[in-house]
C-alpha cells in the first residue's frame, strides 16, 4: 500500500507545482528574467525638438505597460539610444543591442536616413534585432526587403499623393519644390514633383535644393521670387524651415498672403512659428501619422501625456509623440505574445509575432503586411495657427487608407 500512496502524493505535488507555474503574474516560472527594449531617435542634435516628444511617448507607453504587469510579471527596462540624427552613431549604439539578447527590439530609429543605414546590421545580427519606427517614411525603409523593418506611420508615396493633391485642390499654379538633400527629403520631393506632373500637367514646377543645416537661403528665395511661385513645397525634417520662411518674409513672400507653404512631417511642429519669429504662421505641413488629439481611441493617452508632462506639453511634443506611443505598444505586445523558454524570449520569436499578430494601439489596430507596412494609416495636413508666443498646428485635412 505504501507505494501507491507515494505515487499519489508525488502526482499531487507535481500538479500543484504545475499550477503554480501557470498562475498569475509575479515571480512565476513563465516570467522572463530580463526584458529590455531600446528607444532610438535624435534626442539631441538638430532634430531634438521632434525626438524629445517621441521619447516622452515611448516612456509613457513602457510605464503603462509595466503598470499593467509587464511581460508575465517582469517589468520592461527601457534603454535610450540617442543617435543624434547620425547613422554612424546609430550603428555604434545598435551594436550593443545586437550583442545583448535581452534587448528584444527597438522603437525607432526615427529618421529614414538612419533607418536605411541601420537595416543591414540589424538584419544580419544573430538573431536579427527587430525595430518598429514611429516616423521613418521613406519608401526604401520597407521596400528594401529587410524582415526586421516595421513602422506605424504611412509611407512617402501616400504622403506625396496627399501633398500633391492638396496643392492641386487649393488651386496651385506655380510650385517651387524644394528638398534639403537628405535621403528622406529628396525622394519625397521627387515623388511630389512627379505627382504634380502626372495629375496636373498645367502646373509649372521649379525644383531647388537646400543643404542640411543651411541658414542662408537668399539664392533659393531669389529663384522662388523670379519664378513667381504661388506655392512652396519643402520636404524637410524641420531644421531648415525657420530661416527659410523668415527669409521668404524678408523678401516680401509672406505665407498666407502672396504665397502658400506646404511642409512635411518635421515641419508639423509649432515651435517653428516661434523660431521663425512668426513667419511660419499660416503654413501647412503634412504628417505621416494621425494627430492623437483627433483620434477618439487616443483620448485617454492625450490626457495621460498632459498629466505626466504638463498641460502645455502637447504644443511642444512635436509630430510623433502619438505614433511613438503606438510603436511601443506594438513592440511590447509582440514581446508579451512571445514564448518564454528558460526565462528567455528569443528575438526570432518577437519578429515572428510582429509579422503575424494584430496589435491594439491608441491609433487603432495594426497588422503588418509582408514588408512591415500597415495597410490602413490615417495621415493628415495641419496648419500653423495661433501667435508667435503660443502657436499650434491645427488639423486641416485627414485621410485614411
Amino acid at each position, binding site marked *: 500500500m505504501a507505494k501507491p500512496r507515494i505515487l499519489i502524493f508525488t502526482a499531487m505535488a507535481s500538479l500543484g507545482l504545475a499550477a503554480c507555474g501557470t498562475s498569475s503574474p509575479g515571480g512565476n516560472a513563465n516570467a522572463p528574467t530580463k526584458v529590455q527594449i531600446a528607444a532610438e531617435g535624435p534626442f*539631441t*542634435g*538638430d*532634430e*531634438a*525638438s521632434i525626438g524629445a516628444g517621441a521619447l516622452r511617448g515611448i516612456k509613457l507607453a513602457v510605464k503603462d505597460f509595466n503598470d499593467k504587469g509587464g511581460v508575465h510579471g517582469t517589468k520592461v527596462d527601457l534603454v535610450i539610444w540617442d543617435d*543624434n540624427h547620425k547613422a554612424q552613431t546609430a550603428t555604434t549604439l545598435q551594436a550593443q543591442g545586437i550583442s545583448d539578447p535581452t534587448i528584444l527590439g527597438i522603437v525607432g530609429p526615427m529618421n529614414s536616413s538612419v533607418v536605411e543605414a541601420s537595416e543591414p546590421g540589424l538584419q544580419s545580427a544573430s538573431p536579427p534585432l527587430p525595430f518598429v519606427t514611429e516616423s521613418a517614411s521613406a519608401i526604401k525603409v520597407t521596400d528594401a526587403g529587410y524582415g526586421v523593418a516595421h513602422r506605424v506611420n504611412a509611407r512617402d508615396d501616400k504622403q506625396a499623393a496627399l501633398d500633391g493633391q492638396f496643392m492641386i485642390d487649393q488651386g496651385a499654379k506655380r510650385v517651387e519644390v524644394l528638398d534639403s*538633400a537628405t535621403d528622406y527629403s529628396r525622394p519625397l520631393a521627387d515623388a511630389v514633383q512627379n505627382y504634380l506632373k502626372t495629375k496636373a500637367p498645367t502646373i509649372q514646377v521649379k525644383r*531647388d*535644393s*537646400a*543643404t542640411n*543645416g543651411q*541658414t*542662408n537661403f*537668399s*539664392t*533659393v528665395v*531669389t*529663384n522662388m*521670387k*523670379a519664378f513667381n511661385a504661388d506655392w512652396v513645397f519643402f520636404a524637410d525634417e524641420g*531644421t531648415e524651415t*525657420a*530661416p527659410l520662411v*523668415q*527669409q521668404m518674409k*524678408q*523678401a*516680401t513672400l509672406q505665407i498666407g498672403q502672396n504665397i502658400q507653404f506646404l511642409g512635411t512631417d518635421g515641419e508639423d511642429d509649432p515651435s517653428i512659428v*516661434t*523660431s*521663425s*519669429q*512668426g513667419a511660419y504662421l499660416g503654413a501647412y505641413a503634412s504628417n505621416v501619422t494621425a494627430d492623437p488629439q483627433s483620434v477618439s481611441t487616443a483620448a485617454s493617452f492625450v490626457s495621460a501625456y498632459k498629466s505626466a508632462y504638463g498641460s502645455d506639453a502637447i504644443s511642444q511634443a512635436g509630430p510623433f509623440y502619438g505614433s511613438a506611443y503606438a510603436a511601443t505598444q506594438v513592440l511590447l505586445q509582440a514581446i508579451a505574445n512571445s514564448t518564454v523558454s528558460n526565462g528567455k524570449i528569443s528575438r526570432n520569436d518577437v519578429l515572428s509575432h510582429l509579422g503575424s499578430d494584430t496589435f491594439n494601439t491608441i491609433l487603432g489596430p495594426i497588422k503588418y503586411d509582408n514588408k512591415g507596412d500597415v495597410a490602413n494609416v490615417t495621415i493628415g495636413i495641419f496648419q500653423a495657427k495661433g501667435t*508667435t*508666443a503660443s502657436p499650434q498646428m491645427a488639423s486641416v485635412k485627414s485621410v485614411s487608407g
Partner: protein
Amino acid sequence: MDYFLQTFPQQLVNGLEAGSLYALIALGYTLVYGILEMLNFAHGDVFMVGGFLAAGVAGLFVHNGVAAVPAALVVILMVAVAMGGSGLLGVGIERIAYRPLRNANRLAPLITAIGISLLLESVVQVQISPAPVLVPSNALVSQRVLQLGNVATPFTGATLFIAALLLMVALDLFVFRTRFGSAMRATAQDREAATFMGIDVDRVIVVTFLIGSALAGIGGVLYGLRFATVDFFMGYLLGIKAFTAAVIGGIGNLRGAVVGGLLLGVLESFGGGFISSQYQDAFAFLALIVVLLVRPQGLFGQPLTDRA
C-alpha cells in the same frame, strides 16, 4: 535671358552679403597663417562661440519678443561680449594649445587645432544646446527690407555687409598704418629677425589671435542678427568656406582674404541661382580647385620662392 537679367543684380547682392561674412572670418585664418604659418582650424568655432555669447546676452534682455532695455544697448552689449569673449578664447587657445607646439612638427598644431575645434563644438552641444538657439533679432534690429528697383535686401543683411567692410578697412589701416601693424608685418616676414629687432613676438602673436578671434566674434553677432539662429555646428561649413576664401585670395594676405571671400560668395550665389542650387556648396570648392591649378599661391599670395 530675361530670367538672368532679372535676377542677376539680386544674386550679386546675395553673393556679396554671404561673401562679406566669409571674408570677415577668412581674415582670422589669414592673420594667423601670416604670422605663424599655421592653419587655425578652430577659428570657425570661435565664430560659433561668438554667436552663442551674443545669443546669451540677447536671451538675458529679451523676453517674449520685448527687450527689457533699449534694443541698441542690447546690441552693443552683444557685440562687446561676443568680441571680448571670442577674443579671449582665441588668446587662451593660443596660450594653452598652440604656443607649446610652436617649434614642433607642422602637423602637431594642425591636429591640435582640429581637436580644439571638435572640443568647442562638443562643449557647446552638451553644455549649452544641441538644438539651434533663437536669436530674437526682431526685438533688437529693424526687420525693414531695403528695396532698390528689383533688388531687395533686409536691413540686417545690409548691416552685415557694411559692418564687415568697415571692420576689414579698419584692420587694413591698423596693419598697414600703425607701429604695431609694422611689428605684425615684420613678424610675418621673418619671426627671428623681428625678435632681433626688439619686437616682442609673443605679444604680436597674442594680439594677432585677439584681433582675429574678436572679428570672428562680431561675425557671430552679425550672423545671429541676420539669421535669427545660432547652432553648435554653424562654424564648421562656414569655417571651411572662409578658409577656402583665404586660400583663394592667397593665405597670409589680408586684402586677398577679403577679395577671396567676396568672390566665393558671388560664385556660390551665381552657381546656385543660374546653374543649380543642388550644387551650391560645391561651387565654392570648384572655385578653389580652379584657382589653385591656375595660381597655386592664390590670387594675391606671394609665390613661395619670394617668401624664402
